[in-house]
């Protein structure tokens, strides 16, 4: 039986007196894919940031892998993410960016493993272009690669389909399903309904900072 790996209980969040999360509660079981659907500004990204510990809830609790985030630990343990707001270094190549993150976050992938990771997300590891010369789709793929660096059990992908063409979306669906086969738990947000219905086992539908509906998609 899959146990709860993330528990969000009655979380609210205000930014400058504006409510962005209004008492959301949900739990996430391990080794499943959860979709977060909703329009821009509905609270999906803030929810992810709250789970990660990048944003402190105004009230409520977030528990990840048995630890209360922002209480027991500052940030969610064993959790990786790809959120566009937290970007990579524009003056470095793809492999240089991954190398730097790998070392700073105290993990020790060798050069060959980093190159394989770039190939896995559909990027050429020998590409000497700096990130600032990448297309938006390439930047998105590199961001996803950075989320896979640590082999964490939980992977959070915020709007990963942005800037990806149809082939890119197919690659992403395959990648997410592979990650599930590896035993990972994936949280992915999108306002692309079709994409989420293809990939997610369970979907939370957001509107105005609340979960208005849940859809079970698991076969």
């Amino acid at each position, binding site marked *: 039986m899959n146990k709860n790996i993330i528990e969000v209980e009655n979380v609210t969040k205000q930014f400058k007196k504006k409510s962005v999360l209004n008492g959301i509660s949900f739990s996430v079981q391990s080794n499943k894919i959860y979709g977060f659907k909703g329009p821009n500004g509905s609270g999906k990204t803030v929810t992810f940031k709250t789970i990660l510990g990048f944003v402190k809830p105004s009230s409520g609790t977030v528990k990840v892998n048995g630890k209360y985030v922002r209480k027991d630990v500052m940030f969610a343990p064993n959790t990786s993410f790809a959120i566009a707001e*937290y970007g990579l270094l524009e003056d470095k190549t793809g492999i240089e960016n991954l190398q730097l993150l790998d070392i700073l976050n105290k993990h020790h992938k060798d050069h060959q493993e980093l190159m394989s990771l770039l190939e896995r997300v559909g990027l050429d590891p020998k590409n000497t272009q700096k990130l600032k010369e990448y297309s938006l789709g390439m930047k998105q793929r590199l961001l996803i690669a950075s989320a896979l660096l640590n082999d964490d059990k939980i992977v959070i992908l915020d709007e990963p389909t942005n800037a990806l063409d149809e082939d890119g979306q197919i690659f992403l669906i395959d990648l997410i399903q592979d990650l599930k086969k590896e035993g990972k738990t994936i949280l992915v947000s999108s306002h692309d309904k079709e994409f989420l219905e293809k990939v997610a086992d369970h979907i939370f539908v957001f509107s105005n900072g609340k979960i208005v509906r849940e859809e079970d998609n698991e076969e």
Partner: protein
Amino acid sequence: MNNLLLIKRNATLFFHDIRWRFGIIYLSMLMLILLRKWQQLSVINMLNGVVQIPGNFQFPLEWFFLVISSFLIIGGAPRRLFLKEYPMVHEVSLKLYISSIMLLAVIVDTVIVITWYLISENRDSLFFITVWLVLGTLTTLFINIQFFINPLFDLLFVIVLCILTISINSFPFISLLMYSRWHSNISWPLGLIVIVVVDVVLSICIKKIDFVA
């Protein structure tokens, strides 16, 4: 090795952020100093500040500009470096990360003070070391505050402190930046204690911060 890499990474981001401000403000400061030098006015004269006499208020514009130049250059770079760039490397300890930001900002102070020292004819080393220490302490406060508030308001706070220093002859600690007051019995421990206490309180509150740039 990780620490050096972190500093290198943060230095790339920090100096990229401040490059235009550094160029414009540093050059303006340099031009002003050289112009004054040509007019037989030394750097020490410009850093004299003022000792206010009742009924004859004076505003030492050059002193004011020299002192705030460092803060104008640093701007909101520390805030962005922390709130936007820390999450990607959040397995690095918070203290270490913030220390690296402080170090980079103090490098800016150091470049400025060294410039003043080298151009000055009257190289009162003890005065310039004091200026460097006081500026460095103020910079740590400036950085800690802007993690919580808009950097523009933070800059305004520094400007207000400078204006208070100009207006009040015995204003603690920051008066040490004025050569005319440096030899007086300025109450530096009080000012330093206040700044250190505020810094400590802010560093405790940092765990409540939202990493949203």
